[in-house]
């Protein structure tokens, strides 16, 4: 589905990615993990064409994404930090994005699911962080695309909403969608992902299933297995 070939990215004098090779398989849920500042968001932004790689190529469904934008029609992307224009209302921003993409949507269903109906007429700058994240989720998931990218989807969500999000994602998995997530909540990652790609020092340090990770690190607990990866690296 998605193929990263030797992706390099440098910001000023900071080498963030130094040769990422990764493939994301169709119909599976892949989690990209790594310490803070390891370049997870940068990698996603390069995939979406928001950042440009200094070197390397990305293929989405076997076609190179360079100078191409139409592949984004089939991607639902949830950005990490929900930065919205503050002076417009929740329903206005939903209508705006719907109008801009002119693709079929399921916004009403999602608004109800995340209990946003009473907030539709409130300005985005007056929403709490958790509700902003819910708006963010509605905006990105409403197009029902076959490929979903979620950058820290859990940030700001309360336990009830978190369970709702997990249930929703499980439904999407059952529908055969490809999901790419980054998160620091290990229990969330363990519960919903099939595949782990651990990025360290700009390279893919581990790539495999959760079971493989546990057996290579000889840990039974997922969280400890990840910590073990980091520890062994620094030792």
């Amino acid at each position, binding site marked *: 589905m998605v193929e990263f070939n030797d992706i390099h990215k440098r910001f000023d004098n900071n080498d963030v990615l130094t040769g990422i090779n990764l493939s994301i398989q169709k119909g599976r849920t892949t989690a990209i993990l790594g310490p803070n500042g390891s370049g997870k968001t940068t990698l996603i932004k390069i995939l*979406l064409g928001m950042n440009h790689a200094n070197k390397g190529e990305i293929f989405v469904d076997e076609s190179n994404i360079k100078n191409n934008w139409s592949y984004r029609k089939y991607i639902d992307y949830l950005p990490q930090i929900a930065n919205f224009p503050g002076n417009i209302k929740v329903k206005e921003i939903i209508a705006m*994005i719907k109008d801009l993409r002119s693709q079929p949507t399921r916004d009403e269903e999602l608004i109800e699911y995340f209990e946003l109906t009473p907030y539709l007429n409130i300005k985005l700058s007056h929403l709490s962080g958790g509700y902003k994240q819910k708006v963010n989720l509605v905006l990105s998931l409403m197009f029902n695309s076959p490929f979903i990218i979620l950058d820290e989807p859990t940030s700001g969500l309360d336990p009830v909403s978190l369970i709702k999000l997990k249930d929703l994602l499980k439904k999407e998995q059952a529908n055969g969608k490809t999901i790419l997530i980054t998160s620091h909540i290990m229990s969330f990652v363990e519960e919903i992902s099939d595949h782990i790609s651990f990025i360290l020092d700009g390279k893919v340090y581990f790539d495999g299933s959760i079971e493989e990770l546990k057996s290579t690190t000889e840990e039974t607990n997922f969280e400890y297995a990840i910590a073990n990866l980091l520890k062994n690296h620094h030792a």
Partner: protein
Amino acid sequence: MLKILKYSFFDLVRSRWSYVYFLFYLLLSSVLLFLNNNISNAIITLLNVVIVLVPLIGTIFGVMYYYDSQEFTQLLLAQPIKRKSIFMGQFLGVATSLSLSVLLGLGIPFALYGLFQSNVIFDFLILIVVAVFLSFIFSALAFNIALSNTNKIKGFGYAILLWLFLAVIYDGAFLIALIYFQEYPLDKFTLIATLFNPIDLSRILILLKLDISALLGYTGAIFKDFFGTLFGSLVSFGVLVIWVVLPLWRMVRQAKRKDF
């Protein structure tokens, strides 16, 4: 692109600053008309205001709008929309709303005063055309500056400097050069130097149209000789068009390369 243009345009039309800008021109031209009691004189006075104010507001508004809508831009960048459409749409939104403020602010009082019955309608039209050109040129330059500077303070600083340079410093340097090299034939040099500054070019276009180039003396004669002909007008409008197209071309190139 048209949808982005629509949103940017309505976003700006709803903003308080567009009204302030519009009301300022409305007030200014009404006062000038009723005090002067003469459309031609009012146009000349307005010329001096328009030529300085339109570039200033264009640069400030352009930079301000770009930085203000960064969040919205981020949101748009993740959508299946071409980068070119996003930035062209936003630019056109700013430029058209500014032009509209000038057009209506100047147009309404003049129309009420009986512009359409007078014989200076073409003089007025050229004033409007120049104001529209300047709005487009300076908002395009502002977008260039804002795209190249992530730091807002720096962006604003460069924008003000650019305006100061083209509106004030350029003329000063130009004058010093003329005095310093007065022994030499300078007609070609003056003509070419004028083309490099859209503010100067606009001023001369209007002055010549108003037929007060006699005030310009010797240079005026040369200008009249050049700009007065069809060829001269075509060249000067062509240069104004280049002043719009070049910054836009750079803006699109810059936008395509930038990391967001």
